[in-house]
């Protein structure tokens, strides 16, 4: 049994008491007798599905799935994907955690925003080239019908990068929207959030759904909340000299901005056209210490991803159907992105761009009513300009990557900067057999083969058994493997500078560079898992799982004390490269409970989850360390009170244990914290108008999240209480 911090024992105790407290009256579903005595307004407040039915997919699927419905998203006030993930057991969301990808998400102890796939309606909407991108307001939920989160490796179906999980945001059907919904919210620190969502059947056979959001915020002035962290101090160059004196320091600033758009056009449920667009601008000074950085308004990191797809569903008979997909998606780190920190001499720019063309054909063969086969093949073509070295001015998108006129620092503008433009392909084929052998036993066995022109073959199996020993209980035994393709950003990234001095052979000397390693192999993982779900009543569900994960060939930087002539005309006397040198072992368990009941026109819904995760990563030199950006213990809980479908109140509580950062050799760990968030809403209070208020960090606690380290604080100070009010109108 792991050591449990004394401060959480009462919380744990309370949680388990709640979990197993006898629930009088909950043993039977709503009877027709009770329903017939209700008024119309009371009937209008009752959910059409029980908690058990809401979780039907989680119950039946041969995977560990959590489904969050539109109703839950609304009642709990989730605005974007990071809000939702933060409330799920088994997930760590560390906010303001990294300069380039902002919030960092760890699923079951394995951190990395690029290690799980984000999809919208089954189409990947994350980076097409596997970049580590922010998970924040660029993934909004205003249009979501439900969000499905699959835990564990899933490359057997989804291919590369379904390493720790898959998140699928399923948008509302046009018929379900049937009109227009607009919303506008305003809050503290100049927070604005607006969205519009439209859906309509244009004809009997054509449905259209379109929507978009726009948001901006100045965000809290952390120098007021954390004066000890953000007090005026000298900004120092890397050599220790003063770049800007404390008396001349600029005010703290950290604005964010985001927008998104989507469109789905559905022709007779056969042919679909769709697009998504997402943009996020966040400070590239995120988590930075004032001695290392200048808090400038133009110190931004701007991520934009566009995706377009066409899908055709064909029936080749009663037992065979097919689905053809064409997708083109582009990721671009906007040219204005860059750093104002000491490593960048307080002003530099970065650029990256990746695009993917994907063709996929899937066939679904129903052998009989209990046995089915799904198979398919994919072809993907990638073009990638990996993240450039620091640029003295913005990348000119109108010119070729190698015709930008940039030179390495310290070479008197003589050694031209290498900017890579890489083309590669991936070919994949997969087959999965699903069989229902009896009412109590079903199996899934699948295998996927991928060939990537950079690193070769990957074979990933999955297998699952689902037992229903009694009517309301399911036991799942799951096994899955996955691979994380080394993105060209990692394999081709290089940065560093020259001293300005030449050696005897006339070569510019550099003491240090981070150099590319195009021979990187994929990281690999496998997970063994057992799940148990039990419906005590249709409205009271408890579930738990235990998992054991192995990871190998993890990529980490290693220093090479040798020379390199990677850059023509230069000599690099010491360098580091990324290499497949690490491995990890992770195991843990989640316990969850969902309960709902009705009393006095009020629908009460409780949810709670406890997660425990443990493990070690093996680092260069044989050192081992704790799992970075992962807390050993977490409790996520909340309760929704819905009075007659008119007034909604949802307090949510997240408790996170001590968390390690990436610098495992440091003594500093992020201290435990409790975060209370609140959502309240007056629904349809006047002719289609609803009003809501969202409070984050209700108790105004000073707390910290774990970071990558380096230029940043090891414990990144988090926002004080923030509030926004909004109106929503549906017609």
């Amino acid at each position, binding site marked *: 049994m792991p050591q449990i911090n004394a401060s959480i024992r009462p919380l744990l105790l309370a949680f388990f008491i709640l979990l197993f407290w006898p629930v009088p009256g909950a043993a039977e579903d709503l009877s*027709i007798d009770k329903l017939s005595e209700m008024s119309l307004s009371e009937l209008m407040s009752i959910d059409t599905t029980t908690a058990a039915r809401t979780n039907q997919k989680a119950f039946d699927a041969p995977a560990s799935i959590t489904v969050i419905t539109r109703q839950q998203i609304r009642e709990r006030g989730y605005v974007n994907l990071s809000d939702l993930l933060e409330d799920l057991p088994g997930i760590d969301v560390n906010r303001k955690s990294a300069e380039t990808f902002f919030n960092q998400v760890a699923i079951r102890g394995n951190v990395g925003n690029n290690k799980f796939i984000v999809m919208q309606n089954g189409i990947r909407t994350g980076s097409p080239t596997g970049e580590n991108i922010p998970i924040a307001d660029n993934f909004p939920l205003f249009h979501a019908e439900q969000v499905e989160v699959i835990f564990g490796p899933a490359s057997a179906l989804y291919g590369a990068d379904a390493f720790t999980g898959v998140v699928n945001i399923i948008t509302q059907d046009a018929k379900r929207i049937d009109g227009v919904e607009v919303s506008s919210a305003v809050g503290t620190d100049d927070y604005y959030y607006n969205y519009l969502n439209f859906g309509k059947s244009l004809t009997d056979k054509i449905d259209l759904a379109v929507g978009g959001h726009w948001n901006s915020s100045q965000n809290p002035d952390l120098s007021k909340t954390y004066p000890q962290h953000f007090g005026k101090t000298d900004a120092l160059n890397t050599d220790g000299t003063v770049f800007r004196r404390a008396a001349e320091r600029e005010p703290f600033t950290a604005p964010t901005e985001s927008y998104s758009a989507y469109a789905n056009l559905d022709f007779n449920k056969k042919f679909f056209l769709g697009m998504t667009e997402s943009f996020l601008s966040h400070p590239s000074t995120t988590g930075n210490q004032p001695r290392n950085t200048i808090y400038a308004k133009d110190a931004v990191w701007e991520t934009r991803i566009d995706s377009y797809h066409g899908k055709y569903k064909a029936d080749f008979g009663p037992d065979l159907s097919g689905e053809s997909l064409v997708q083109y998606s582009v990721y671009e780190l906007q040219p204005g992105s860059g750093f104002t920190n000491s490593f960048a001499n307080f002003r530099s720019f970065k650029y990256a761009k990746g695009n993917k063309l994907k063709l996929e054909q899937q066939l679904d063969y129903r052998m009989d009513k209990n046995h089915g086969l799904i198979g398919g093949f994919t072809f993907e073509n990638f073009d990638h300009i990996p993240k450039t070295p620091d640029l003295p001015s913005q990348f000119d998108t109108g010119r070729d990557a190698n015709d930008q006129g940039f030179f390495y620092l310290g070479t008197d503008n003589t050694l031209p900067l290498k900017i890579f433009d890489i083309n590669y392909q991936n070919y994949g084929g997969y087959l999965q057999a699903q069989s229902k052998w009896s009412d109590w036993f079903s199996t899934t066995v699948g295998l996927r083969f991928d060939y990537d022109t950079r690193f070769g073959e990957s074979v990933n199996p999955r297998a699952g058994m689902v037992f229903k020993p009694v009517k309301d209980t399911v036991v799942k035994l799951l096994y899955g493997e996955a691979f994380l393709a080394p993105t060209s950003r990692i394999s081709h990234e290089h940065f560093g500078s020259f001293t300005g001095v030449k050696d005897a052979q006339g070569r510019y000397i550099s003491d240090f560079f981070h150099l590319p390693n195009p021979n990187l192999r994929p990281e690999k993982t496998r997970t063994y898992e057992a799940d148990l779900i039990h419906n005590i009543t249709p409205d009271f569900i408890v579930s738990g799982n235990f998992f054991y994960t192995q990871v190998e060939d993890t990529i980490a930087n290693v220093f090479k004390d040798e020379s390199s002539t990677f850059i023509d005309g230069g000599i690099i006397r010491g360098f580091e490269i990324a290499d497949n040198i690490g491995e990890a072992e992770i195991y843990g368990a989640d316990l969850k409970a969902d309960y709902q009941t009705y009393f006095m026109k009020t629908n009460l819904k409780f949810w709670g989850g406890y997660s425990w995760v443990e493990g070690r990563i093996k680092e260069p030199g044989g050192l081992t360390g704790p799992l970075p950006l992962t807390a050993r213990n977490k409790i996520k809980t909340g309760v929704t009170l819905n009075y007659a479908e008119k007034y909604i109140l949802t307090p949510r509580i997240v408790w996170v244990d001590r968390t390690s950062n990436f610098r495992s050799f440091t003594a500093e760990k992020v201290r435990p914290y409790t975060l209370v968030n609140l959502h309240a809403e007056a629904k349809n209070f006047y002719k289609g108008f609803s009003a809501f208020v969202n409070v984050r960090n209700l108790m105004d606690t000073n707390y910290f999240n774990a970071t990558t380290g380096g230029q940043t604080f090891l414990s990144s100070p988090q926002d004080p209480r923030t509030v926004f009010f909004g109106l929503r109108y549906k017609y």
Partner: protein
Amino acid sequence: MILFNIRNTILIYAALFLLQFVAPPSAPAQESSGREYAIKAAFIYNFVKFVKWPERELRPSGNLTLCVTGADPFGPALEKLAEKSKTAENKLIVQRAVNPDGAAQCHIVFVGGPDGGHLERVLDAVRGKPVLTVGDTPGFAHKGVAINFFIEDNKVRFEINVGATRRSGLAVSSELLNLARIVEGGSGK
């Protein structure tokens, strides 16, 4: 290499594969959306209190006939309501699998399923007659069904085609209209 053991992996696959053949196949259990239709049945039971039929239509028994055409998704809910209505002012008589062309004999008709041709026949049969048509298929209210259920945020909602109720000579209370989404459409021919 501490992690991957090929022999164990093959053994696990083999075991899983063999397990597929251990248990004989049998029919899958039926899923039910009983709760949703129990709620809808309770709504229909409530509608009776807010809709006024011409006096002559209820004589001599005061009974109300609730018919279901097409697929019946209610299960035993309607029977239970009928049983409960025995002590109410208007006793509910449930008739299932009613021929669409005979729908005019009913006071309330629930038009089940998404069958457009079937709907046309029901609407033709009840045109100008004091019959409350009820459905739960998207677009039915626009086509002339008086009350049509839909689901919003996991709750049952309903829309009322005011023109359809007016043409059928039914008086619908403002209390019911206030809770409904009002739509137009359908033929008044």
